[in-house]
């Protein structure tokens, strides 16, 4: 009888473990589906906590990425003009009238993506992450006249110039994402499309770093059938030496920087980020960023790293390319299914010790634009509301279930996040997967000047069907969440 019980227990463990075995199961990301236009839009298909209401303000947008408001409460949206999948449209700044109709204020030729917008001092400021020409911060007046305040930003690669955000101190803050996944240019960057355009493009550190001597031999997309060896912070096909010093520069990649509204005094705030897409100041004046973490792809894949919400402390190094949060990638927890081992450090010595993140968000959630509640009328004052764009499996790595596709609320003092706006049903995912007219890919969230309404920018449908991203134009939506009386405590 004892032997039977033991065998039964072992069988139980075996069956239970099989149901979750990562290696055995296929990928089930949210974009791994099909879609036939037009997009259905139905706020009733979105669930929020009791007392909150969501409605669609504008529909039919193409790749919207940011929202802002003027002093009169006018609503403005930017359309990116570029999407992963190498789809180029026209970046635009649009005014959304109360009926939801857009009016173009300015456009940007082929200089997309425009990744965000803010209004300050009578002007719009736009983060232009131009995939073709490099990043800039633009100032646009209400009549649409444009002026570049900062240029030559390191934005031709995987990640772009992000933000910008007008700080309470009068500075303009913005993020600059990295060129690569984890420091090394590789075949995955050819699949993104930029490596062929800019074969010498690579990451640039913000401060001097000394290399550990790791190099990576891969296939050569420039000469199929041959190999190439590439080191970190170097062009494709350029190996680097142990002990070699890479001189830091400003502007650089993987950083939060700031500039005066007239374009003067560009300076580094903090570095060692990977893709600091969302920026917001808390009600007590602290700067936070969302940072998309490593993907399981490329020459140096990194497995199992959730997106991070950081409090930004000036002068701090936040760990890229050798840490996730507080943890070195040399930690056994980062053993990669693709590598069969953990990633080796690229730097001979870390430039610092990253602090503990304010929150750790799901792997591949693409936690992006966010804002803090400041109004008792909305509730949850001091908590962050983060738009999660959703996974891009399998391009970024496999997931066992869709991740993201929602808006979450984060208590930054406890590091706890809660679902806030999700699609109705028993499973998580975008509306295109689940059916119905709910959320697709929330990419930005911003409170209006009253603080009573949270606007959520929904990028629209982006599929991933094994050949890279396939975005669908005219499926973007601007949502508005407001609170009915009596809801919204503080947990």
């Amino acid at each position, binding site marked *: 009888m004892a032997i039977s019980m033991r065998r039964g227990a072992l069988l139980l463990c075996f069956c239970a473990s099989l149901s979750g075995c990562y290696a055995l199961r296929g990928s089930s990301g949210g974009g791994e589906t099909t879609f036939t236009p037009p997009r259905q839009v139905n706020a009733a298909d979105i669930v929020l906590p009791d007392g909150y209401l969501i409605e669609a303000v504008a529909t039919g947008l193409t790749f919207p990425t940011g929202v802002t408001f003027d002093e009169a409460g006018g609503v403005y949206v930017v359309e990116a003009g570029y999407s992963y999948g190498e789809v180029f449209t026209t970046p635009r700044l649009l005014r959304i009238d109360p009926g939801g109709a857009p009016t173009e204020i300015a456009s940007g030729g082929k200089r997309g993506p425009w990744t965000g917008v803010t209004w300050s001092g009578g002007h719009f400021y736009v983060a232009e992450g131009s995939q073709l020409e490099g990043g800039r911060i633009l100032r646009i007046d209400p009549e649409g006249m444009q002026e570049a305040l900062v240029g030559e930003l390191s934005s031709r690669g995987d990640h772009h110039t992000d933000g910008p955000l007008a700080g309470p101190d009068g500075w303009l803050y913005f993020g600059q994402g990295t060129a690569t996944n984890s420091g090394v240019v590789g075949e995955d960057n050819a699949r993104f499309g930029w490596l062929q355009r800019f074969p010498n493009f690579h990451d640039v550190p913000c401060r001097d770093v000394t290399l550990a001597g790791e190099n990576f031999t891969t296939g050569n997309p420039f000469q199929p059938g041959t190999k190439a060896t590439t080191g970190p912070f170097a062009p494709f096909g350029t190996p680097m030496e142990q002990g070699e010093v890479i001189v830091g520069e400003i502007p650089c990649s993987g950083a939060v920087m700031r500039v005066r509204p007239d374009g003067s005094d560009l300076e580094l705030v903090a570095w060692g980020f990977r893709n600091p897409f969302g920026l917001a100041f808390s009600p007590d004046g602290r700067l936070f960023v969302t940072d998309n973490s490593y993907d399981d792809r490329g020459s140096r894949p990194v497995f199992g790293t959730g997106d991070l919400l950081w409090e930004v402390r000036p002068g701090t190094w936040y760990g890229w390319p050798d840490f996730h949060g507080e943890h070195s990638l040399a930690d056994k927890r980062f053993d990669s299914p693709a590598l069969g081992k953990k990633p080796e450090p690229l730097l001979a010595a870390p430039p610092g010790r990253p602090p503990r993140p304010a929150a750790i968000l799901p792997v591949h959630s693409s936690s992006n634009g966010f804002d803090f509640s400041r109004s008792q009328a909305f509730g949850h004052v001091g908590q962050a509301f983060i738009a999660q764009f959703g996974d891009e499996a399998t391009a970024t790595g496999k997931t066992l279930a869709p991740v993201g596709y929602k808006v979450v609320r984060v208590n930054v003092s406890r590091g706890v996040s809660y679902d*806030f706006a999700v699609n109705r049903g028993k499973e998580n995912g975008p509306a295109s997967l689940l059916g119905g007219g709910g959320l697709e890919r929330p990419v930005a969230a911003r409170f209006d000047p009253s603080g009573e309404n949270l606007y959520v920018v929904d990028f629209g449908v982006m599929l991933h069907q094994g050949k890279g991203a396939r975005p669908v134009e005219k499926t973007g939506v601007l949502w508005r969440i407001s609170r009915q009386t009596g809801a919204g405590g503080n947990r």
Partner: protein
Amino acid sequence: MRATIFLSILLLLLAACGTPRRGEPFGPLTLSAQGREGEEHFMRHCHQCHPGGEGGLGPALNNKPLPGFMIRLQVRRGIGYMPAFPAKTIAPQELDALVAYMKELRHGERPQ
């Protein structure tokens, strides 16, 4: 032995059929003091792969009827690509709180 095999298959089927969704929009989750502490440990160590106990990089947890000792075993030992979390990472009393939270989460409100 037959009964054991049947029970194992039944549990496997139950795990596949139950929805893992819990989440705030589907009803407030009232936690004990220990569960509230465990919630913070869950967010720090587990949430990135098992978002809210639902599936993500890792499988869903909320619909798996694992007893506490098996949760502890899996956390300490890891399994497959799930890393191990030794006592220096999650202290014994923290693991107790984490298990308490996971049980309270598992029994939380289901979506309508």
